[in-house]
């Protein structure tokens, strides 16, 4: 039986060496869709590097079996989606809504929701401009954000299978991404649009009306809930038409399962961020947070992986051991980094991520149970920071900063992202009590020595 070694971050080569100690029965033990023939996924990072993920050669990984499982599972997602379709499951594309459509889709038997948007990681993990170049060829401006690689993926149909149904958000979700989705529609895909309302605050309304407050403290007009309920019911009806079934009890069950994941992830975050020594690396933690959106196309297996990760982290916390030095400088990270290498670099240079705001907080809050499920989903979604004002987002980040555990904030500014262009400056200006470093995320392979120097200087200054 494989035993975890003293925690540390190790390279791809070191993982390959360590993988020699993993037994065949352990490899066969973990599988997605419970399939023995093609569902095995426990491989060292080198496997995915051989298949083109070139950045893995540069990254450092947690050395636990739980982390290996996490990497194997997430890197297997593309194959998993194709296998899902081959085995008769339905593929549900959710775009831009960030967290709710999958909860609905998972209430239907053999339906696998996924986010084509996640293709934005691919150019970085592959250190490749293949998708970005293709997107430009297809008509997206060079200066649009990395999510344009989604368009290329739809064109190529080599990264995920043709979805059985597509849901796309517009309105207060990202307008740039809505343009990409329109281009997907122009390719002949039939999109089902749902509109996300902008979360207006009381004082910005001309006619006073009843407001309420979401769990995360965001205020919103009560009628938005009803509006979203209608949108989600349309999603439900489309799913019913697709599958020929539909039982609201199954939606309650899906909410309950998604909540289990959300609670587990929150527990993992708490454990990791409050421990004296960082028990798990920031990169793996980011992958864990993003898994909340849809469970990486096999929610049951994902739940099991999270349990194993939590156990590994809890063991480390109990023993007071971890993967970073105990004097690592505590930082908050705002807006997800498209380039995973940056999280590694910040840790290598002496930082430790103890708070994150990856614009997916609606997928981290639990959904109310025991009430009408569509209302529960609508209320939960109102926690999204992306659909409100920058001011609200700043206030939320500032609350974390004021808790005193954060020495500095890193904000990532995505090349071509219109939101970032506006928000990063504002956030930087308004976070008065804490030093802020804004990083422009360059194109793949674009991290320069100069950027490293800026991060080093920032961390040293905080120290």
């Amino acid at each position, binding site marked *: 039986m494989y035993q975890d070694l003293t925690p540390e971050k190790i390279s791809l080569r070191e993982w*390959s060496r360590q993988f020699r100690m993993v037994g*065949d029965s352990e490899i066969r033990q973990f599988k997605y869709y419970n399939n023995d023939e*093609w569902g095995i996924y426990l491989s060292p990072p080198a496997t995915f*590097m*051989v298949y083109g993920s*070139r950045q893995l050669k540069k990254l450092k990984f947690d050395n636990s079996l739980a982390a290996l499982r996490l990497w194997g599972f997430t890197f297997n997602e593309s194959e998993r989606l194709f296998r899902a379709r081959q085995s008769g499951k339905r593929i549900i594309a959710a775009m831009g809504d960030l967290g709710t459509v999958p909860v609905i889709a998972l209430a239907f038997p053999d339906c696998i929701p996924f986010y084509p948007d996640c293709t934005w990681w691919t150019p970085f993990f592959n250190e490749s401009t293949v998708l970005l170049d293709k997107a430009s060829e297809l008509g997206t401006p060079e200066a649009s954000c990395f999510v344009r690689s989604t368009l290329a993926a739809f064109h190529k149909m080599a990264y995920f299978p043709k979805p059985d149904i597509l849901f796309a958000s517009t309105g207060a979700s990202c307008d740039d991404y809505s343009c990409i989705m329109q281009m997907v529609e122009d390719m002949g895909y039939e999109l089902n649009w749902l509109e996300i309302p902008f979360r207006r605050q009381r004082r910005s309304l001309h006619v006073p009306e009843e407001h309420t407050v979401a769990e995360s403290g965001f205020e919103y007009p009560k009628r938005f809930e009803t509006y979203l309920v209608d949108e989600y019911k349309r999603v439900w009806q489309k799913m019913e038409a697709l599958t020929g079934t539909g039982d609201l009890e199954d939606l309650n069950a899906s909410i309950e399962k998604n909540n289990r994941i959300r609670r587990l992830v929150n527990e993992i975050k708490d454990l990791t961020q409050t421990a004296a020594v960082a028990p798990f690396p920031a990169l793996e933690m980011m992958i864990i947070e993003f898994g909340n959106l849809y469970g990486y196309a096999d929610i049951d297996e994902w739940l099991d992986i999270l349990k194993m990760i939590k156990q590994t982290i809890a063991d480390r916390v109990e023993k007071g051991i971890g993967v970073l030095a105990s004097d690592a400088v505590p930082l908050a990270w705002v807006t997800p980094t498209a380039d995973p290498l940056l999280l590694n670099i910040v840790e290598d240079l002496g930082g430790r991520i103890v708070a994150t705001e990856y614009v997916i907080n609606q997928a981290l809050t639990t959904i109310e149970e025991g009430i009408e499920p569509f209302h529960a989903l609508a209320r939960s979604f109102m926690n999204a920071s992306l659909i409100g004002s920058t001011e609200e987002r700043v206030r939320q980040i500032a609350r974390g900063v004021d808790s005193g555990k954060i020495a500095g904030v890193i904000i990532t500014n995505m090349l071509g992202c219109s939101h970032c262009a506006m928000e990063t400056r504002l956030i930087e200006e308004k976070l008065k009590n804490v030093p802020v470093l804004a990083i422009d995320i360059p194109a793949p392979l674009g991290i320069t020595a100069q950027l490293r120097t800026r991060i080093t200087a920032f961390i040293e200054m905080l120290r």
Partner: protein
Amino acid sequence: MNDMLTSRERFGLLVIDEQPDRCNIMPLITSHAATVKGMKLRDYYTNGENMARAQIATVEKYEHDAISIFSEVGIIAEAMGSEFEYPENDLPILRTPVLEKKDIEEIKLPSPRADGRLPVYLEAIEYAYAALGDRIPILAYIPAPFTTAMMLSDPNKFLIQTIREPSRVESIVDRSLAAAIELCYHVIDAGGLPIIVDPLASSSVVSPKTYRQYALPSERKLVDFLHRYDLDIILHICGDTSPILDLLPQTRADLISIDQVNMQQAIDKLSSRVRIIGNYDTSRLAFSTPEDIEAEVRYMVEGALHAKKGYIAATGCEVPIKAPEKNVVAFIDTVKEVGWYWV
């Protein structure tokens, strides 16, 4: 029609049982790359960067779907102590097999970063991977244990020992297997996808009984080891493998590359279990005309394109070093014309 996918994407779909835009084209362009680059053969197989640059130039010229890091099957045996001569314009020649000087117990396992030309291979893989690894699979040819075993010995004596001294042959093959596994660890970490080549296990060289007794079990062990990595493994045996076709799936290889075998027979026997690679006659590439090649390749591809688990258009053996470039172009262009799935 224009390609819609990169070679990397195309191969990625094939190995998960999906049809790509067109069939993969992977003629075994190995040392022929030196000719394309205008390089002396010795410069090709003794310098990793040269080997990679020649392969890259070849892929840029022909636009086929794989880089093939390889020159000859002696590399593991050489790293274990067999001595080779390096002619300036020919492939290495086995001069003194190590077992002529030492006994099997004395042969050390090679260190792939230090011994023989294994570092040359690893450097070539790393260079090619850094240059093109996001767009094209980097195939790293690994001599199978049985073939290496024969290169550790005097080949004639070895063949007699397969009948008279089975336990000795088994221990030589086992030692070769351990060396192949050691090399694979490094090949994978460098970014190469191991492809197992076992030319001396061909029925043109040994009987089906000998194949079953020595080569097959060691091929299977190597495949099993590589499957721990969840890699899709190609097994290539050149020459005539008709008598052992039924045995090949027992190796558990995911893709089987055939040479002098009736393609229809191979499809009937294998295609529901493995993906088939093959099998254009390389002597035709050397001596035929583009017009004849076009007609023959068209016939081959049309017959094999819809093999149940997938098909890769390839040559049955290595593209001859001096094959006229126009003939190789004719092969590749013809497959690109008739090998489409997405229409």
